[in-house]
């Protein structure tokens, strides 16, 4: 428990540092967003209008006042107003995009973890067998592909050559989203290619990681002893080898879940998917500071939360860490 509290304290500190940097960086850079708007309006503004704009974007008063105001707004999930999609609040754009990304990248991560781990178990268990010698090199190769190539290939093949899947977007344009079969099917159908393009380049890493850890464990005395005990192959594989080999993979999984909210830039752009990656790219191109800042905070938070989750999970799954925490 003390261990977890210490970790919690650390993560809180890290979060604070991150949001402070997030506050300082745009203010230390030449040309704040308010100035940019003023410039784009070519100075045809009265002084009180200028003040109003500065106030809207939180650039009023001393740096300290601004910081306190920034924290206050943050605590209320008020990320300001989008400078590009004015006057849409940034928060609503962010949460809209985050929802789609969470679904897209989350599903892809879960799938590639599941596929990769299962394949890793089998290829390590029958090392040098057909499954291993056939799939391991293929997966190494797929893992070396860049997402851009795969996404473009899939997009070209399955929407242009054979028009099986939709060109893009998260669902049909004229669909009114609701909890009905039509919505679910439409969303799933639209997600097939984007999810596939992420899974194809990422499951190989899980496969290789799991396979290597398993192979190292197979030489352990306790595995030999399990065999000497006359346990079934299935039990040895699952309880004595895979059970131990999954621990480092869980840590990696938690970390990659943290980055889910970073979005999948290329996939989302190729398939015109309304996720965080596409929105962030758009925000960078149009200098929508409030969105970039909000996205950074969201990403920081999710990475920290995922790290914390990985700590907690490891303590639950690995008894050796439990007593470490106690000591």
């Amino acid at each position, binding site marked *: 428990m003390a261990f977890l509290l210490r970790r919690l304290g650390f993560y809180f500190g890290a979060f604070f540092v991150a949001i402070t940097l997030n506050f300082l960086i745009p203010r230390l850079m030449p040309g704040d967003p308010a100035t940019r708007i003023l410039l784009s309006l070519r100075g045809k503004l009265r002084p009180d209008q200028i003040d109003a704009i500065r106030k809207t974007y939180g650039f009023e008063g001393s740096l300290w006042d601004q910081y306190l105001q920034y924290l206050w707004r943050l605590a209320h999930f008020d990320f300001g107003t989008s400078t590009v999609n004015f006057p849409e609040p940034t928060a609503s754009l962010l949460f809209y995009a985050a929802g789609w990304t969470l679904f897209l990248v989350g599903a892809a991560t879960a799938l590639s973890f599941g596929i990769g781990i299962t394949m890793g178990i089998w290829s390590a268990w029958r090392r040098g067998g057909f499954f291993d010698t056939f799939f391991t090199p293929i997966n190494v190769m797929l893992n070396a592909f860049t997402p851009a190539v795969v996404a473009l290939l899939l997009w070209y093949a399955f929407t242009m050559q054979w028009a099986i899947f939709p060109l893009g977007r998260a669902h049909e344009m004229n669909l009114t989203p609701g909890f009905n079969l039509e919505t679910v099917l439409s969303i799933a159908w639209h997600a097939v290619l984007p999810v596939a393009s992420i899974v194809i380049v990422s499951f190989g890493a899980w496969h290789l990681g799991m396979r290597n850890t398993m192979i190292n464990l197979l030489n352990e005395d306790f595995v*030999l*002893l399990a*065999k*000497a*005990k006359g*346990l079934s192959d299935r*039990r040895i594989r699952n309880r004595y080898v895979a059970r*131990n080999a999954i621990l480092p993979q869980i840590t990696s999984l938690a970390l990659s879940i943290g980055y889910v909210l970073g979005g999948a830039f290329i996939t989302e752009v190729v398939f015109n998917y309304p996720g965080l990656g596409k929105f962030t790219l758009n925000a960078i191109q149009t200098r929508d500071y409030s969105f970039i800042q909000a996205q950074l905070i969201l990403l920081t938070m999710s990475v920290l939360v995922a790290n914390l989750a990985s700590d907690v999970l490891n303590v639950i799954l690995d*008894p050796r860490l439990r*007593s470490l925490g106690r000591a």
Partner: protein
Amino acid sequence: MSDAPLIEVRNLTVDYVGANSVSRAVNGIDFDIRPGEAFGLAGESGCGKSTVAFALARLTRLPGLVSGGAVRFMGEDVLSFSAERLRRYRWSEVSFVFQSAMNALNPVIKVSEQIEDAILAHRPRASRAETLARAAELFELVGISPRRLDDYPHQFSGGMRQRICIAMALALEPRLIIMDEPTTALDVVVQRDIIEQICELKARFGFSVLFITHDLGLMIEFCDRIGVMYAGELVEVAPASAILTAPQHPYTRALGRSFPPLSGPRFRLEGIAGSPPSLSALPEGCRFSPRCGEAIPVCVRLAPELRPTPATGGEAACHLLQ
């Protein structure tokens, strides 16, 4: 103690198969272990002691391969067991205690589960209450409080872990327990406790032991008979008491001279000049001949065979004895 052997090993041969070479780690050895007997295998590192031990339960790991001979357990040929028969034979007839208790237990599973799964693998219909009661009973046998059953391996000391391994080995009351350096990783005081415990349990349950250790003194004390191995072959089998007092084979003699006695006159320890041959470049004739001070011309041409030695009631493989 009946005279019908519990396990008979005949002309057992184990090879290690490389990419384009084959090394014979165990070259046609014969020995018996009788019911209730403690049989020791002595020899330098790499002479094939553990390889023999693993072969008895067909646990030889690739690239090792049992390439010839027979292992008969109560008359049944272990090497021709089906997979299912083999699974049932393991642990219920022959169980193991390994050297490193540190690594012999899965660090992320409770020790109770690791004992219970051995029982369940052989008695699938046993209830959870039965297996738990048996695990508690076993813990008490080796002097550990059953309250600690739900602890994990890292919460025990090295000596306790080895006791847990012994408890586990007793779970199904096997007829033979193979102990491969069971005390090597422990300090001498704990070592003594463990050996005494094994002796006590052995007297109580009457199982046989195949005992492997580098500690010749300990082996002589614990075992009834000892087989001395050199470069994958048995060079002498003799009652434990005769190994130091009446060694027949020059190698046994040399081994004895490498150990300091605790009483009696002092003498200079000699050791054995040279080192054991590489398995891929074995000398012709007797494998010990290049290091043997008493070698005669025939030794480098012809490999000697095990023959009875009337002086000890055992066997030895040496041209000088014929």
